């Protein structure tokens, strides 16, 4: 109890030392709690692609916890350094080291408890506050941000581990030092950091690996799996970069006497070098947080604003009807049903295409494998259909084919399916009156071939490989403009029909319940599939609700990251201001004018401002390709638009960052100039 009292008295007495540490602890806790809360929110399950999103959020939580660990160790060591003198005094006044360790552990324990209480309370308040603002901002309630005790427990467990680590670090550092060391440690200077070439190279290697992973991503699903690894590489690389590369650079500048011994550079270079070890972690943290903010915001804003683009690419006309039958039969059916119900079909476009083959397409060879990185959906289209759509005549001889890689890339000279090989005569990048995107996450390849007969064996093989029940064949897509009020009517009317490949389309009197029963067993192949109907408005609404959900999550995380960044910068400025205060006093006594002091401060401050944001923008540049692929998980992207929204979000974040910086710099000036 005595130690407990001593510990809590210590915290209260030197609150100014503890405050920055407590602040970073609580903020880190809140950030983690926010992610965990979103992850456990029931609303998440309602979003399309929620499983991918859950995975991303899980990974995000892991990254953020590691990040919190790094940052907490950094600020704890800072705290410890300031406290060692006090510990030394205890030691000399008769407390054993073991007892001092007990005190420091207890202090940490109190901080831990305070973090959980304050972090949870603030987290709830912050979440509620953000929720209200965002609902107001977006004009719609896309996502229910629900506080859950489980989230608190998970994050608290992670923080318990972090605090255990801190206790170990504290105990170790106290045990290692002699009483005299303890007494002196507080005002002991640091040796100039060594520049370690290996670390610099390792950092660059990590960055390169991360970048390489990001750039070489082949498909959306591939992006999802590589995202996490790339992020870890980049975080480690960033840290090493700041720790070694910047030191190397500063040392080089220092060696160049003509450069170094100029008033402008002299003080900046020497003081940057002096605390680069501390600075490196701080700068790396800021960089990583800013990058995270960029990535989350750009992704979600990009997704949200891509919706209209997706739909425009997908919907050639405002309604798409898909019938699993031949072109003639499907067309006749739809016309008949439409006429009977008095629904006008305007600007009708009809085309026939093979059922989809889904598998791995690698080096021109298609295999029935579910390899994520090369997963591709393949559809065949005859030359006649192509001509009918585009009005362009193509002459294909024998096994020649034209490739249209609508999503992804295809650069090979041939495409092989089992023992059938097509020579690729040409590769095209668009078909008029035909969607340029699909609603699946995989790549999409359309092959234009001479005749149906050529590909039937391939379809038969694929059908067998898939389980034999369903015979693969051709289906028909009919796009038309239909008045919004008639969409439901036509959909219902069509649902009474069953189409099954080459066989005649049958009509059934027992509406939809029948299909459900049929779907369970053999009967389905006999009964066939009802035609499907997708309307622009319907899909638009559905897209908007999930993209809105994403946007909501993105904004919550973005705000949280910005808040975190703000606090780290603030903490950095304040603690450095305290350190620099004496230096600037001395400099002024020796003969640095007030204006020169201000100029020196400004150039240091600017460097610390621009370095993280520049590095973050470079990181983001590489992440961009991944983001684009990730958005493809939910729907394809338009590069131009994504570029635009990304630049927009970066600008907004940069401006906010700048304002934060201005504000905290002012705090710094106030401390230094006092």
């Amino acid at each position, binding site marked *: 109890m005595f130690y407990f009292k001593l510990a809590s008295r210590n915290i209260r007495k030197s609150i100014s030392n503890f405050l920055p540490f407590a602040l970073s602890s609580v903020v880190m806790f809140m950030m983690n709690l926010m992610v965990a809360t979103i992850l456990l929110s029931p609303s998440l399950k309602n979003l399309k692609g929620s499983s991918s999103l859950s995975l991303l959020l899980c990974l995000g939580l892991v990254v953020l916890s590691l990040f919190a660990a790094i940052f907490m160790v950094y600020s704890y060591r800072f705290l410890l350094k300031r406290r060692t003198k006090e510990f030394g005094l205890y030691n000399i006044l008769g407390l054993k080291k073991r007892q001092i360790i007990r005190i420091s552990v207890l202090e940490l324990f109190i901080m831990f408890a305070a973090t959980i209480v304050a972090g949870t309370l603030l987290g709830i308040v912050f979440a509620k506050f953000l929720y209200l603002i965002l609902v107001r901002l977006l004009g719609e309630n896309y996502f229910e941000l629900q506080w859950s005790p489980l989230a608190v427990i998970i994050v608290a467990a992670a923080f318990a581990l972090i605090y255990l680590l801190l206790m170990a670090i504290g105990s170790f550092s106290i045990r290692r030092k002699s009483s005299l060391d303890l007494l002196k440690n507080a005002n002991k200077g640091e040796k100039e950091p060594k520049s370690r070439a290996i670390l610099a190279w390792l950092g660059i290697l990590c960055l390169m690996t991360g970048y390489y992973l990001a750039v070489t991503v082949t498909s959306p699903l591939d992006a999802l799996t590589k995202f996490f690894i790339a992020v870890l590489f980049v975080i480690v690389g960033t840290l090493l970069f700041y720790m070694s590369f910047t030191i190397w650079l500063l040392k080089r500048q220092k060696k160049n006497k003509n450069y170094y011994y100029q008033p402008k550079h002299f003080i900046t270079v020497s003081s940057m070098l002096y605390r680069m070890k501390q600075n490196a972690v701080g700068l790396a943290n800021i960089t990583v947080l800013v990058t995270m903010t960029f990535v989350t915001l750009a992704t979600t804003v990009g997704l949200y604003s891509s919706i209209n683009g997706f739909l425009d690419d997908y919907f050639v006309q405002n309604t798409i009807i898909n019938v699993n039958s031949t072109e003639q039969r499907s067309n006749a059916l739809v016309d008949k049903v439409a006429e009977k119900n008095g629904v006008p079909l305007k600007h009708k476009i009809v085309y026939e295409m093979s059922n989809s083959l889904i598998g791995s397409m690698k080096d021109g060879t298609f295999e029935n494998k579910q390899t994520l990185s090369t997963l591709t959906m393949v559809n065949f289209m005859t030359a006649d259909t192509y001509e009918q759509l585009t009005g362009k005549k193509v002459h294909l001889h024998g096994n020649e084919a034209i490739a249209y890689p609508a999503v992804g890339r295809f650069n090979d000279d041939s495409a092989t399916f089992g023992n059938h090989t097509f020579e690729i005569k040409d590769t095209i990048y668009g078909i008029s009156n035909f969607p340029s995107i699909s609603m699946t996450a995989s790549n999409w390849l359309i092959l234009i071939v001479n005749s149906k007969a050529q590909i039937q064996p391939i379809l038969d093989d694929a059908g067998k490989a898939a389980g034999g029940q369903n015979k693969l064949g051709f289906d028909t897509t009919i796009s038309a403009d239909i008045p919004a009020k008639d969409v439901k009517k036509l959909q219902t009317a069509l649902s009474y029909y069953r189409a099954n490949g080459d066989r005649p389309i049958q009509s059934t009197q027992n509406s939809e319940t029948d299909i459900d029963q049929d779907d369970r067993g053999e009967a389905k192949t006999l009964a066939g599939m009802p035609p499907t109907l997708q309307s622009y408005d319907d899909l638009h609404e559905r897209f908007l609700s999930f993209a809105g959900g994403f946007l909501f999550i993105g904004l919550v995380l973005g705000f949280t990251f910005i808040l975190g960044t703000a606090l780290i910068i603030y903490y950095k400025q304040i603690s450095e201001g305290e350190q620099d205060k004496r230096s600037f006093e001395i400099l002024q006594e020796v003969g640095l004018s007030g204006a*020169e002091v201000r100029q020196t401060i400004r150039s240091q401050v600017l460097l610390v401002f621009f370095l993280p944001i520049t590095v973050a923008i470079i990181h983001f540049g590489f992440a961009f390709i991944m983001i684009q692929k990730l958005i493809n998980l939910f729907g394809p992207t338009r590069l131009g638009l994504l570029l635009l929204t990304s630049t927009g979000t970066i600008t907004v974040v940069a401006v906010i960052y700048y304002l934060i910086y201005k504000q905290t710099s002012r705090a710094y000036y106030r401390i230094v100039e006092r």
Partner: protein
Amino acid sequence: MLLQVSHLQKIFQTRFSKEKTTALRDVNFSVEEGEYIAIMGESGSGKTTLLNILATLEKPTSGSVLLSGRDVTKIKENKLAEFRRSHLGFVFQDFNLLDTLSIRDNIYLPLVLGRKKIHVMEERLEKLAPRLAITDLLSKQPFELSGGQKQRVAITRALITEPDIVLADEPTAALDFKNSERLLTLLEEINATGQTILMVTHSAIAASHAKRVLFIKDGLIFHQLYRANRESSDFMQEISMTMTNLLGTEVR
């Protein structure tokens, strides 16, 4: 005449209270070139205040300070820094070395601020370093040095600008007896080369190394002693006696 101080007055008024403190009432004295002057007085007598005014770190309420005929109290704020680093050298009680700089760079600091050429800095340091016995310390960091070593570095930094006058505020206060003695002898040697020094102290031992001692009390200079050709120990006796008699205080 190098320095002429006349009718210097300094009244402090804290912002939050109406109470005024008169630190200096009417200080008059002058310093010839090549002199070594100690200003003595008890705690709170206004020594630091006086020195700060000479150092242009503070403005007097009234009076003037002429250095080589130029009134330093009238120098504009934005010219002060430049004036300080080209005409004055400082030695402080707590050394005031920058932790961020190596010893060499700490010494170079005022020259760098004055935009001197590198070879000029190197030449000057080469001449000074052996005299102050700091040649071996140049590549170290301040925290690796003892107090006496730090003060020698601080003196080197004060001398490297070749100032008109070196101002020292209790330079021995943070040092032990032996180190103090060494430092005081060093200052004497430096003065012997023609460098004018003005030191503020409350220690009779420190003052006894100077050529002339001024006594300050209640913001007034009211007595002075010349060392003439005496040994410093003899001179110290007289200083102690003067302090005891005139100021009514016991000194070390």
